[in-house]
């Protein structure tokens, strides 16, 4: 519970809350990137350098930009929404609050069996690479396949438009 952690956690939560609550979708995405960056900083603080930097690379560099593009492509000038929340916003937030209550209670009440004092561990890149290439090679390949499939899917979705307009 260091000061760094508190600051980072505050940034992250503020970013995510803003991302979910703001009216302007672009603002939402910008706030979301703040949240993602805060999360990445939390990973770095935990010693997971590779994961933290990958988080920034993937989420800030790709997902957020992609979301921004989609928002810009799908916004309609005539689309004037009176409310940004759906009609069942009350039940939705109730469910979320309940989930948080349950999770919070569980975390609070469970006696964690290990690791009160953090040991000095770091996820260096080399062991990660080794693990990816040896122990986790099958998941890696499957993920590659998945990503390829996603790529092809995205391309198919994009080409769709061209064919129709042509």
């Amino acid at each position, binding site marked *: 519970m260091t000061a760094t952690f508190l600051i980072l956690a505050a940034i992250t939560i503020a970013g995510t809350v803003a991302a979910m609550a703001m009216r*302007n979708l*672009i603002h939402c995405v910008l706030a979301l990137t703040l949240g993602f960056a805060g999360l*990445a900083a939390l990973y770095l603080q935990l010693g997971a350098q590779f994961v933290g*930097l990958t988080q*920034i690379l993937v989420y800030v*560099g790709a997902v957020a930009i992609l979301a921004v*593009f989609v928002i810009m492509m799908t916004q309609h000038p005539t689309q004037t929404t009176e409310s940004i929340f759906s009609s069942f916003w009350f039940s939705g937030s109730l469910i979320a609050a309940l989930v948080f209550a349950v999770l919070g209670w569980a975390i609070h009440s469970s006696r964690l069996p290990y690791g009160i004092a953090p040991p000095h561990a*770091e996820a260096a*890149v*080399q062991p990660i690479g080794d693990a990816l290439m040896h122990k986790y090679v099958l998941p890696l390949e499957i993920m590659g396949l998945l990503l390829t499939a996603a790529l092809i899917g995205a391309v198919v979705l994009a080409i769709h438009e061209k064919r129709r307009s042509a």
Partner: protein
Amino acid sequence: MIPTPVQQADQIFVTLQHRLVSYLPAAFQSVADVILSVIAIVLVFALLFAVTTVLERKGLGRIQNRYGPNRVGPAGFFQPLADGVKSLTKEDLVPRTADQMVHFMAPVLLVLAAFLAYAVLPVGRNMVLANLNAGILFFFAVGTLVELAVFMAGWSSRNKYSLLGAMRAIAQMISYEVPLVLASIVVIMAAGSLSTVSIVDMQTGYSGIWPHWFLFTPWGIAGFILFMIAATAESNRSPFDLPEGESEIIAGYYIEYSGFKFALFFLGEYLGMFATSGLAITLFLGGWAAPFSFLTWIPSYLWFFAKLLLLIVIFIWIRGTLPRLRMDQLMSFAWQFMLPMTLINVFVAGVWHFMPAGVIRWGVCALVLVVPAFLLSRGLKQGKKFAARTYRFAE
């Protein structure tokens, strides 16, 4: 062991920093260490930015048979000072319909991201702010922040030109980030490390007088050229300066910025250029290592900056010569030439690793690179559709 004078000169800034920090209480020492380094980086690279703007304008001037700025100070070298004063005293105009907060944040984020990248660049022996385990990954991660900043600038200005510019910039940066990363992967493969410091350390040896730079391998040359092309595109320099194409979309994403914020964009752009050039030096040109073994007595940081200036000069030279590409050509160049070439280069680096050293290895690797490059460039020309023409004359 007592350091020789050469080593002392080499390490002068490092020892100075240690000396300064040692006066502080132990609790603050690590923080002060970082702060000192950050100040040094900010100062040095801001100064380099100032010098580069003059050099670029003078160089472009000479290329175009003009003098370039030569009025302020000796030979015009105080021009950036005058420019700075001017941009500071200029009225800061913000469009009324602009998204004020985002509009303000964009240049700040841009400069911040550009400066962050320097944290992992070793500018000299033992001169790096953070020797991160995943340094190169860090570099690319902060590079993505630039895209975000550019988007924020373009979108928040509420100007159609700036929006077009931002769209172009993002599309271009994302497209060229892939070849940029792939071009540096060959070095990571060879070095077996993502740490910039260890990558430079691997290149500091010499055989005879020749250094062990990664540049001196087929995949190194190809990787360097591809990296520099991608870096030009990443830093929006000519001939890939479409996002700010002044003749088409005027200034692109920063059309609505004035005064100091405009200067910040300028700064951020140049810092980005220095950073990617610095990474190219780190990856391919041996970082701070001297080019010949008999030149090692020159301090390492000088070598780094000499190489950096060399790359900057090349940037200026190219800017003075080439017209700009079009968006679709830029994209097809990225996906049809750069991406396959970088992938082939990765393959070549693997082949290099497993083949016995010798002339055959060189030949095979070079051949595997040159043939596809030739074929792909033929493809880019779209089956010789682009060609010099002959004309008929009527009496």
